[in-house]
C-alpha cells in the first residue's frame, strides 16, 4: 500500500515522532504568551535543552535523567530572559532574539567533545500484542513514552487553562496586567513562573531531538524548530488542542519532504527542505490577514512589560 514510494502508515507513525519537539516547545510558549509575554528565544532554549539533556543522558546512561536535565537547562536559560524582561524591564522582542543567539553559542560550547557519541536508547512503551494490530498498531502503540507524554501534556495544559483558578489567573495577567495588579495579583511573579515553564517545555522538546529524533549531538541541530513552534502558537490561535493539530501538520510536512527526498522525487531537494518554513510563513500571513487581533484570540497584553506605578 505505497503511494510514490511512501507508506502512509509509516508516514503517520513517524510524523507523530517528528511532531513531539515542536509540540512541546509550542505548548510551553502558549502558556508564556497566555500570560502576556512574548519569548522569541524558543530556539535558543530548545538547543540548550538538547545539549543539557544529551550530556546528562550520556553521563548517567538514563534517558529519563536526560529529559529532566533538558527541561532544567531550558528553564535556567529562560530565567535569564525572565530576569531581563520582568525585573529590569528590557524589551521582550530584542531579549528573545538575543536569547536564541546566546543559546546557540552556549550549546555549541557545551557540546565540545560530544560529537559522534550515541546516547542511551529511549525505549518504546511495551503494549504487547496491541502493537501487532495492522495499521492502528504501528500508529498508536509503537512509540516511546515521550510521544504519549506530549499528548498528555497538551491535555494537561488545556485543562489547567480552561478549568482551574491558576489558569484563570494566567489568562487574566495576559489579558490586562493593570487590572490583575489592581486586584492584587503579583503580575511579574506569575509571568516569571510561566516563562520558566515555557523554558522547561522548550528544553524538553530540544532533549527529544538529541536523544530520540536524531539521536546524537550536532551543532545547531534544532534547525529552526523553535521558530516553527512560535508559528504554531499563532496558527493554533492560543488553543492547546490546535497546537497538537498544528504540530502534527508541520511534523507531517517535514516527514513528507524527507520521504519524498528518499523516494527520489523529481523536485529538487532544496525546495523540499525549505517547504516547512515556507508553509510557516504562508500560515502566518493567512492567519493575520483580514481579521483583527481580538478575533485571533491573542492575549491583549502580549509583549507589553508591566511596571507597577504607585
Amino acid at each position, binding site marked *: 500500500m505505497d503511494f510514490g514510494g511512501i507508506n502512509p502508515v509509516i508516514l503517520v507513525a513517524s510524523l507523530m515522532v517528528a511532531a513531539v519537539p515542536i509540540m512541546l516547545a509550542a505548548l510551553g510558549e502558549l502558556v508564556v504568551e497566555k500570560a502576556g509575554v512574548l519569548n522569541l528565544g524558543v530556539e535558543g532554549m530548545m538547543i540548550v535543552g538538547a545539549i543539557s539533556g544529551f550530556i546528562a543522558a550520556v553521563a548517567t546512561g538514563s534517558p529519563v535523567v536526560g529529559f529532566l536535565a533538558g527541561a532544567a537547562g531550558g528553564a535556567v536559560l529562560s530565567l535569564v530572559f525572565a530576569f531581563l524582561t520582568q525585573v529590569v524591564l528590557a524589551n521582550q522582542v530584542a531579549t528573545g532574539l538575543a536569547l536564541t543567539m546566546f543559546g546557540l553559542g552556549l550549546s555549541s560550547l557545551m557540546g565540545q567533545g560530544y560529537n559522534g557519541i550515541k546516547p542511551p536508547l529511549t525505549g518504546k512503551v511495551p503494549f504487547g500484542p496491541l502493537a501487532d494490530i495492522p495499521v492502528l498498531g504501528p500508529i498508536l502503540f509503537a512509540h516511546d513514552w515521550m510521544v504519549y507524554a506530549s499528548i498528555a501534556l497538551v491535555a494537561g495544559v488545556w485543562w489547567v487553562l480552561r478549568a482551574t*483558578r491558576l489558569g*484563570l*489567573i494566567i*489568562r*487574566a495577567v495576559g*489579558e*490586562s496586567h*493593570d*487590572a*490583575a495588579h*489592581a*486586584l*492584587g*495579583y503579583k503580575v511579574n511573579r506569575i509571568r516569571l513562573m510561566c516563562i520558566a515553564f515555557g523554558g522547561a517545555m522548550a528544553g524538553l522538546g530540544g532533549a527529544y531531538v538529541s536523544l530520540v529524533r536524531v539521536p546524537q549531538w550536532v551543532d545547531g541541530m534544532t534547525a529552526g524548530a523553535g521558530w516553527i513552534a512560535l508559528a504554531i502558537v499563532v496558527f493554533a490561535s492560543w488553543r492547546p488542542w490546535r497546537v497538537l493539530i498544528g504540530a502534527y501538520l508541520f511534523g507531517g510536512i517535514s516527514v513528507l519532504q524527507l520521504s519524498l527526498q528518499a523516494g527520489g522525487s523529481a523536485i529538487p531537494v532544496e525546495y523540499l527542505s525549505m517547504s516547512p518554513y515556507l508553509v510557516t510563513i504562508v500560515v502566518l500571513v493567512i492567519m493575520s490577514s483580514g481579521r*483583527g*487581533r*481580538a478575533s485571533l*484570540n491573542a*492575549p*491583549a497584553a502580549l509583549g507589553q512589560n508591566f511596571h507597577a506605578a*504607585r
Partner: protein
Amino acid sequence: MTRETLLNIRGISKSYPGVKANEDVSFSIGVGEVHALLGENGAGKSTLVKMIYGLVKPDEGSMELRGKSYAPAEPSEARGLGVAMVFQHFSLFEALNVAENVALGMENPPPMRELAARIRAVSEEYGLPLDPARMVGDLSAGERQRVEIIRCLLQDPKLLIMDEPTSVLTPQEVEILFKTLRQLSAEGTAILYISHKLEEIRALCDGATILRRGKVVGTCVPRETTAREMAELMVGATLTPPERRATAKGEVVLGVTDLSAASPIPFGTSLKNIAFTVARGEVLGIAGVAGNGQDELLLALSGELRTGADRIRINGHAAGDLGPSERRKAGLVAAPEDRYGHGAAPDMSLVENALLTGAIRRNLTRNGFIDWAATRAFADEIIQTYDVRTPGNHVAARALSGGNLQKFLIGRELDQSPQVIVINQPTWGVDAAAAAAIRQAILNRAAEGAGVVVISQDLDELLEIADNFAVLNEGRLTRPRTVEGLTIDEIGLMMGGAHGMEVAHHAEA
C-alpha cells in the same frame, strides 16, 4: 443619629519622590454610613483608598477597623476583612466572561456553575441584572460597573469603596446605582464614595471629607452645604464660570453626511449614518457614555480613519478621503482623548511635540528641514499662553502631569489659527481651574470664527460651552438641537435611557 465607628483613620501620610500624596489625613466612617471623599484630581483621594485596600502601604499613621488595628499587606487581606473596592477603571478583563471576572476578585470562589447561580441571585436582589456567561468586552459601561459591584457584593463587604463610579453612567443609570447603594447602606454596609461631582454627593452621602493637596481641609454634611461651598473648599479659590460672547453664526465650515465606518479598535463601536454640520462660531457638544463611538468619531474626523470623500466636507471641499496632514492643511485640527501615546509622543520633548502637529499650519519646516528656532518659539508661546507648568520646553511630555500636558496639547491645536476644531474629552483629568481655562480658550476660538466639535462625557461641561447638543449612542448620533431649554432628563433619554435597566428595581422602593 450616632453610628458605631467602622473604620477609623489617624494621621496617615504617604510620600512619593517629589510629591506628598497624603499628609496627616484623619477621618472615620460609621457602620452603614455613606461617606464622601471629595477632592480634585491629584488631591490624594486615590492614594488614600489604595492604602485602605492594601495596594499601597502608608509611611505613617494607623488605621482601625471595628476597633482592631488594621494594616492590610495586600488586597486579599483587605477583602478577607470585609473591605471591597469598585475601581474607576483597569480592573476588568475584556476577553473573559462575567463569572470569570467575578471569580478573579474573590478569595475562595465556588465552582463556576455555583458562582454563576449566585451572580444571578445577587444581581436580581440588588436590581442589577447580569448574564454570567457574557464576555465583558461586549458589555456597556454601566453593565461593566455592575460586574464590579457584584464582585464586591458576593463577598458580603462591610465597607465598599467606590472610586468615581458615575463618570461612565447615564443619568438614569446613576439613579439605579444610587438606589442600590442606599439599599446596601440600609443593610449596614458602609460606603466610601469618591467623586468630584458635588450634586451627586449631596443627593447620596451622609458625611464628607474634603482633601486638597493631600491634606484634609474640611468636613461637612453634604445635605446642608451648597455645591458652591464644597467646590470652593475643594479648589481653595473662588471659581468664575467661563464668559460667553454671543456671536452671529456664519456659514458652515464642517459638514458630515451619512458617515458610516467600521471601528478599527478591538471591541470598538462602528459609526452608523452620522450627520451634522458646524457653522463658523458654533460649538457643537457631543455627549454619550464612553465606548459609544466617541473614539471612532474622532478618528473619522481627524483623518486617521478614512471614509468616502464627500462624507466629510471642510469649508465645502470634500475631505473624507484625506489623511490627517491634508486635513490640517485644509484647516481642521483634532485633539484625541488619550494624551500619552495618541495626543503626544510621551518620550519626546515639548518642542518636538509642538512640531508634530504644528509643522503644517505654522510653517515650521523649510525645504524638509526643521526650523528649530520657530518651533521653540511656538512651544514657548503655548507654554505661556496656556499656563503650562513645566521646568522648560526641553522636558519630555511624559514628565508633565495629565492636566498640564492636556493644557499644552489643547494649546498646540488652538494656536494654529484653525477653522475647524475637534476635541475629545478636553478636560478629562484636569483640575477645575485648568478646566475653566481650557473651556475659555475653546470659547475664544469660537468667538473668533472657528467651528468647534467638543466630544465629552461631562454633561455640565457641554451645557456650559456648547450652542448645540447631540448624543452618540451605539455609534449613532442624535439630531443636534440647541442647548437652551434642554433638561437633564431629556439628555438622559437621548443617551439611551438606562439601557433596559428600569425593570430591575421592582422588589424594593
